[in-house]
Structure formats: structure tokens, C-alpha cells
């Protein structure tokens, strides 16, 4: 399994890591520093956990490490209370991590002094909140321009930039409305516009769509993907909705009780769940919509005959339409039309029914 996730990482994130998190801990309690000092560093992970818990402290994030590549959508997924928000807030230092390192372009964020931290937040980070966090006494333009105001940019410049952002998120015409006059979806668009106003490199989103009803949510997800195509931010996106994670993620990080359970592409997660906890999520996911041809293909089938062809990133739901009574196999081709693999009916069926033998075909 480890090989496959490394391979995937290499495949999806060829560039150098933009953000690296190393051995991040967040412990709540009366004396988190004390509990995690002394011989703590030398203990194995299990000992560390029991050591902290025995001292009546609470571990919200335990030894969390991951890399996020430039332009990647990295989704942190887990049940309520699993520590997703804690990890995200440690990256922006809304929560001070107890231990660990966070590198942005090779520079440790946790070493930044208060002044430096403010500069980082002003220029490098944008964040979207589940309950929007809009200022009720400001109208839409003022809300979006708020981060620019904090930077003391001239009034005209910041209003112009804010208008641009408002148009980008599709709120043109609502510039002088106040938050209470907007629907939930519109409010979150304002939140998104605000988080992008200062043109940050890192974009943090903490369950941005959870407070919206399903139809609007799915619409907002599409818009989010559209925006990202245009903007290419480095994104950490927190959600407890597995389907949302599958839809949006380049890679998913699944958390449980403050620990990372598995990191991988959506296909890897559904095809090779690390344990029962992850398998629970996959339960009734419509796999035909998640898996692509390349995820379940076997080596190219060379019998000299012509086969129907399918693009490697086509989802199975589409690909299986090519099978009929006479088709033994379908060729999987890349963007240049080279055959890179073959799709066998049996392999497809096994993949769709969560059968782990797929990998062995």
C-alpha cells in the first residue's frame, strides 16, 4: 500500500512541496508544554499518546505530517471532533501548535514573530469559515475589502480589487447589500471573495459549504472547482462529507482522534481503504462516479485486434457504456492517443463492488 500512495503522490504532485507539515502536535490541558517535554521526543507514538492521556490532557492533533504541492487541493476529512479544524488552525496559527514544524516554501511558520505572522496572514493566507464570519456592520464591498483595509491599502484601490473579487464569485449587483440581506450561499460567496481579496498563495477552507443546503452546496462545489482552475492556489480544504472530499480532492487525508489514518488520491482511498474506519466511509459511495478508467486498468491487452478506446481519466460510469456482447476489452489511451492499459469487464465489476483483488489482475 505505501508504494501505491507514493506512486500516486508522484503522479499528481510532481512539483516540489509548497507546504510541509512535520510531526505536528496539539495538546489541550493545564500544562501541554510540560506534558510534551522531557523524554517525550524519544517515546514511540503509542507511548506518547498514552503518556499525554494519563496526564489528563487531550490530544487534538497527534504527530500529523503531510506535504501539499503547489496548486494542489488537499482535503482533510474525518468525523466531527477528529481534529481537522485543529490541524488547519495550527497551519494559520489561529491555534498555537504544541509541537512540530510547518514549512511554507522551506520557511518555518511557527518561528514567525507576531509582526511576521500578521504579514504572513496579510499576504500569503486566505481563509473561509463554516459560519462565514462576515462583519454584520459592513456591506459586501467593505467586507471583501476588509483584509486590504487591514493592510492600509488606499481606499480606491481596495474597493476596485474588492469589486473584481465580487464579480469573480458571481455576486455582481449585491455590492452594497449587508450580510443579513443575503442568503447563506451568497454570504459564503462573500466569505470566499474576502479570503481571495489579498491574492494569497495558501487558501484554507474549513467546512465552507456545510451550512448550506444540498443543492446550493453542490453548485458551490462546482464553482469552487471552476475558481481553482483559474487561480491555481494551494488549498487545504476541511470537510466531514466524504462525497465532497471525493469530488474536490487531488488528495484526501483521513483523520481519526487527532491522527492521520490514510493519505491518498480519491481512487486509492476507495480502492485500498487503510482500515475499517475508512471502509465505513466508502460504504455507499457510487464508485462508478469516483473511479476513472486508469484506476482499474490492467496492462495493455495486445491481441492485434482493434478495441473501443476510452480516455484514461474517463469515469467508469461512462467507460462501461462501451462494453457490449462482443467486447472483451477496452483500450485505455492517454491524451496523445497511446494505449496505456486495458479495461476488463471483470476488473470493473470487482472494483465497483469493493473487491480488493482488483490490484492483482
Amino acid at each position: 500500500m505505501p508504494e501505491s500512495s507514493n506512486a500516486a503522490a508522484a503522479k499528481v504532485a510532481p512539483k516540489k512541496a509548497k507546504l510541509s507539515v512535520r510531526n505536528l502536535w496539539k495538546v489541550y490541558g493545564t500544562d501541554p508544554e510540560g506534558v510534551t517535554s522531557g523524554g517525550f521526543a524519544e517515546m514511540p507514538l503509542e507511548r506518547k499518546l498514552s503518556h499525554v492521556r494519563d496526564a489528563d490532557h487531550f490530544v487534538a492533533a497527534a504527530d500529523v505530517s503531510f506535504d501539499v504541492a503547489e496548486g494542489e487541493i488537499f482535503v482533510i476529512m474525518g468525523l466531527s471532533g477528529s481534529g481537522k479544524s485543529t490541524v488547519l488552525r495550527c497551519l494559520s496559527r489561529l491555534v498555537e501548535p504544541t509541537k512540530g514544524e510547518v514549512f511554507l516554501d522551506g520557511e518555518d511558520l511557527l518561528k514567525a514573530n507576531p509582526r511576521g505572522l500578521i504579514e504572513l496572514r496579510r499576504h500569503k493566507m486566505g481563509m473561509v469559515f463554516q459560519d462565514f464570519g462576515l462583519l454584520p456592520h459592513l456591506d459586501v464591498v467593505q467586507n471583501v475589502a476588509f483584509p486590504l483595509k487591514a493592510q492600509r491599502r488606499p481606499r480606491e484601490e481596495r474597493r476596485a480589487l474588492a469589486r473584481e473579487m465580487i464579480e469573480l464569485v458571481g455576486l455582481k449587483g449585491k455590492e452594497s447589500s449587508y450580510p443579513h440581506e443575503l442568503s447563506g450561499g451568497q454570504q459564503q460567496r462573500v466569505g470566499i471573495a474576502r479570503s481571495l481579496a489579498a491574492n494569497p498563495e495558501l487558501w484554507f477552507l474549513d467546512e465552507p459549504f456545510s451550512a448550506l443546503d444540498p443543492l446550493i452546496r453542490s453548485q458551490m462545489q462546482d464553482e469552487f472547482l471552476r475558481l481553482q482552475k483559474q487561480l491555481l492556489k494551494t488549498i487545504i480544504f476541511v470537510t466531514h462529507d466524504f462525497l465532497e472530499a471525493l469530488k474536490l480532492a487531488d488528495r484526501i487525508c483521513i483523520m481519526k482522534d487527532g491522527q492521520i489514518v490514510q493519505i491518498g488520491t480519491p481512487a486509492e482511498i476507495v480502492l485500498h481503504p487503510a482500515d475499517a474506519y475508512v471502509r465505513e466511509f466508502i460504504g455507499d459511495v457510487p464508485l462508478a462516479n469516483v473511479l476513472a478508467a486508469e484506476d482499474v486498468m490492467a496492462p495493455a491487452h495486445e491481441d492485434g485486434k482493434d478495441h473501443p478506446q476510452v480516455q484514461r481519466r474517463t469515469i467508469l460510469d461512462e467507460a462501461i457504456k462501451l462494453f457490449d456482447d462482443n467486447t472483451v476489452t477496452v483500450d485505455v489511451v492517454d491524451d496523445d492517443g497511446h494505449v496505456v492499459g486495458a479495461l476488463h469487464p471483470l476488473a470493473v465489476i470487482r472494483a465497483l463492488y469493493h473487491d480488493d483483488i482488483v490490484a492483482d489482475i
Partner: protein
Amino acid sequence: MNRTAKRTLRSARLAWPWLVLIIISAILILLRDSYPQIIAYPDGLTLPLADWVNVGADWFIAHAQSFFRALAEGLGFAFILVQNILTGLPWLTLALIVALVAWQGGGNRLAALSVAGLLYVLISGYWVQTMNTLSLVVVALPLAVILGFAFGYLGYRSKAARKIIMPVLDLMQTIPAFAYLIPILLLFGFGPVVGLVASVIFAAPPMVRNTVLGFQSIPPAILESARMSGCTGWQRFLWAELPTAWRQMLIGINQTTMATLSMIIIAAIIGGFEDIGWEVLSSMRKAQFGQSLMSGLVIVVLAILLDRITSAYAARQLPTASFAGLPTLHFFGLIVVVTGLSIAASYVIPGLWRWPEWAVWSPAQDINKWTETFLIRYGSAMDTLKNTATYFVLLPVKIGLEKAIVPFTWGVTFVPAAKTAYWAIATLFCLVAFALGAWRLGIALIIGLAFLYFGATGLPWVSVLGFAMLLAYQLGGWRLAAFVGGSTAYLLVNGIWQQAMLSVYLCSVAVLICIVFGGLLGIWGASSKWASNVIRPINDMLQTLPQFVLLIPALMLFQVGEFTALLAIVAYAIVPMVRYTEFGLRSVSPTLIDAGISSGCSPWQLFWQVRLPQALPQILIGMNQTVLYALGMLVIAALVGTTGLGQLIFLALGRADAGAGLVAGLGMALLAMTVDRILQAVVRRM
């Protein structure tokens, strides 16, 4: 029969601590003629706490007085400045400014209300006095708001500070304001500044509370988004926290304004100058009821205008507010223009500057005449009412039936046979209750009847201490018992037992009346929309008025005395009882009522078995508030001649005796807290 006997025994077993206390009390009462110290706490056992306080206060004053006197000069200067402006400007200018400010906050209706109110002030001829009072408010209010905000923000930022601030606020709001007038008097000397300082201190607590509340209820996402937007701490405070908490703070400003006004009016007692509180007080003392009513109405106008205008500004902050007024800059521009124009106009037409004499019309003399005529015609009926209440309710509670029933009052003598019958019936009631297994009821009956028989001032202090502590223990455990015991001991060792019991007497009568009539009014209000619409504005009015004003009508009709005080206390303290009863009954869930109806309850059964039990916790909260209000009003009622702790504070005020005043004030606060905690324990057990 056998079962009844068994139940009686079981009741007695459960009630044994009470029975023991009752027996001890009975023995004490039998011995009281030979040992008077059973009823009156022996002087030899008191501590000279008041003297110690005075020694401390003298020392402090000797060292700090120069500082405080300097402060007083500064404040006095600010006050005189404002006073000169307010009394110097044309009435037209001031009236227009007030109307504009009202319009900016609440639109045409509020502006019209303000104009009408100010016209009353002008026509009744109290303009100058009103402006003098207003100058004190104008100086005191910003100070109270800033002070309250500072402590409130401190309390929001630091948990440790909050732990100190909150209990101090609780204490400040239970100690009668008069009690801390005295040290202020000593520190700041006489004059308007004392009232100013006192009202700043008295009015700051609601601002503190609302500030803490406002900042604490800022949604965390707003704070986080401000931080993520790269705000510095100062930017976050100014652009995110303050605007978000602002609405709650305006509610605080509204409450602080009302408290400031109330205290400034009350402070006239320690020496007024030409202000409206003094006007009311001196005309009351001279028994000029027409004048005191007219000037009292000015206070009512002031209170209503200040309340409506400040709450309009608070309401305007709601996101759904429809009225926004002018943009701030335009508004100030308009004010400047209007001020200039009106001053110019007043130069030309002097009547716009000083309200002309011929336009003053005060029916005070007529009111005096009407009152006289009314009293001559109905005086005997009023006397009958007053005497009936005094002889049959007040006196028995105060000195007990055994002394209250004499031929002069009741027209009969309380012959030994009747006394025996009284006790026989009391014992019988108690036994019946025991036999029914309701031992609490039995104990309550016998204690209640004994209380009525001996009166609040005729009880052995050991018994009061014992019963209070036992009750506290059974309701709330050792801690509550210790608190109640400590409070009672405080009253005893300070030699203010007698006065405390007199306060208890007047308060308990007032509270009882409030519970009965307030409860009925609340039930009425809950039963009909129409009734509720009638009752609500009256309640609002009674609560907004400075307490002082309530004395006037009672005094007009019934002259000085405890009955008058009782009426004033009831008028003030009945409000929470009515409110909470109505609210409690109204908030019973409709599902429960439907369930009651569908199981065949008659309306009567529905009320007693469904709605009342459900509303009871709210009603108890109302009772608790009523007790606190009654104790608060007691001090003010001392003005019209009551005895007790209120009078003690009053006398101390006259002698500028800080020790005696504070000791009595703290005694009052302890009484209030005792009742409060016991009632809260009752609510918790439900």
C-alpha cells in the same frame, strides 16, 4: 385509625429538628418576661464594627481627602461648564437639538414625543431645574459609561479580573445606594458633585455587565476572520470587536442612563441645589402636593425621553432596523445649522430665549385645592382604609396579635380563652397535616401562626437564627446554612437586630401583597391579550420611573406613615411578580395544554394541574425579584417615615456617619442576599 397514627409518627420523625426548635422557642417565649434579652439581643454582646469603620474611614479621609477634593473641583468645574451652557442657551435651541437627536434615533414619532415632553417642562415652569439636573446627567453619563466599559472590557479579556468584578457588581447592586453616599459625602464634601460621583458609581454596573456580555457573544468566526485578514490587535478591536459588541453596549448605555438619572434625583436628599429632585423633595416636605406632582411629572418626562431615545439608538443597530436617519456627517451639519439659526432667532425674539412668564401655566395650586377637597370629602373613607390595613395587617405582623388586639384597634380584648383557642386550633391544624403526611405544611402552619401571634419584633432571636439556618440547611446544605447563619449573626452583633426585624416586617407584608395581587394581575394578563396590553405599559412606566416619584401620589392621599411607605413599595415591587407570572403562564408549551384538554381537564383543572405547575419556576424567579425590589425601595420609603434599616441609613446620612451607614447598608444587602439564595435553592430543587 392505626394507619393515621403511624403516618403522624412518621411525619414527626421527619420533622424532628423543626419540632426540637419549636419546643426550644416555646420555652424561650415562656421565659421572656424574666429575661428580656431573649427577645432583645443583649447590648453587651455587640461589636463596635461601625466605630471601627469610622476609625478606618477617618484615617483614609485624612490622607486621601485632598486628592478627592481636587477631583471634586475638577468634576465641579465640568459640571458648572455644562450647566452654564444648558441654562444659557435659548430653550428653542435646546428643544430643537433634542428633537433632532430623537428624530435621528427613532423618526417622527419619537421627535413628536420629545417635543411634547419638552413643552410640558417649559409650560410647567421647571425648565431651569430640569436643565440643572440634565447637566449632572450629561457630566455623569459619559464617566459612568467609560468606567463601565473599561471594567467590562477588562472582565472580557481577563478571566481573573472577571472573577473579581462579577461578585462586586452583585454586591453593589444589593447594597442600597444611600449607604455608599456617605463615604462619598465625606470624601467629596457637599454639593452637586456628591450626587454626580454617586451616580457614576451607581450607574456603571449595568454598563459593565452589558460590555462583558456584548464582547463575549461576538461569534468566534468573526474574531478568527479578523485575525486571518491580518488585523493587528488594535485593528481587530476597533474594526471587528467593537462594532459587533456595539448593540449590546447601547443597551448598557440605556440602562446606565436610567440609573444615572435615578441616582441624581435621589441624591437631592443630601442637599440639593436648584435641581428637579430637590424641587420634588422640598415641596413634598412642605406638603405642597400640587407642586411635587408637577415637578414629579417633569422627572417622568425626563425619564421617558432619556429611555426612549437611548433605546431607539440601540434598536437602530438591529440588522432589521428600517429607520437609519441621516448620514452622521449630514446630521451634525444639520445640528450646527439649526443651532446657529435658532440662536440668531432668539436674539431677535427674546421669548424664544427665555420662556415668557405669561406662558407658564401650572395647576399646582388647583391640585392642592382639589386634593384638599377630596380629602375633606373622602378623608374619613381613606382613613378607614388606612386604619383597617394598619390595625388588621400591619400591626399584627409587626407586634403580633397578642399586642395588636386591643379594644382601641380591633374593638375587642384578646381574652385568655381566645388565646387558648388560637393555639388549640394551630396545634390541631398541625396535627391534621401530620396525619395526612404533609409534615412540611404542618410545620409551616405552626410557624406562620406563631409569627402572626408574636409579631416580627416579638420573636426570640435565637429562634429566628435557628429556623433560618435549619431552612437553609434543608434547602441548600451546609454552605447555605453557614451563609444564612453568618448574615443573621452580622445583624445581631452589630446591634441592628431590632431594625432588621422591622425591615423584615414591612418587606414581608409588601411582598405578600405583591405576590397575591401581582400574581392575580399576571394570571389576568396571561388569560387575555387585551389585559396584557393594558398591564404592560403600566409596568414599563413603573419600572422606568425613578423610585422617588412613586412616593408622591401615596403621600398625597395618605400622609406620612408606614401605610404610605407600604403602598410605594408595593407599587414598585409588584412589577416583576406580574411580569414573571404572565410570562411563565404564557410560555407553557401548547402541546401540554392540548394534552390536558384532550384528557378532559376542565379549565379550572387545566389551570391548577397543568399551567400553574409548569409556570412555577418562573413565578418563583418573579417572587425573588419582588423581594429584592421591595428591599431596594425600603430605603427610599424611609423618607415618608418608616422605621428599620432604611431609617438607620437615613439617619446616618444626616449625621454623615459612614460607619453606621455602611453597617446598616451591608445588613440590608445581606438580608437581600439571604432571601435571594434561599429562593434560588428552592428553584433548584424543583
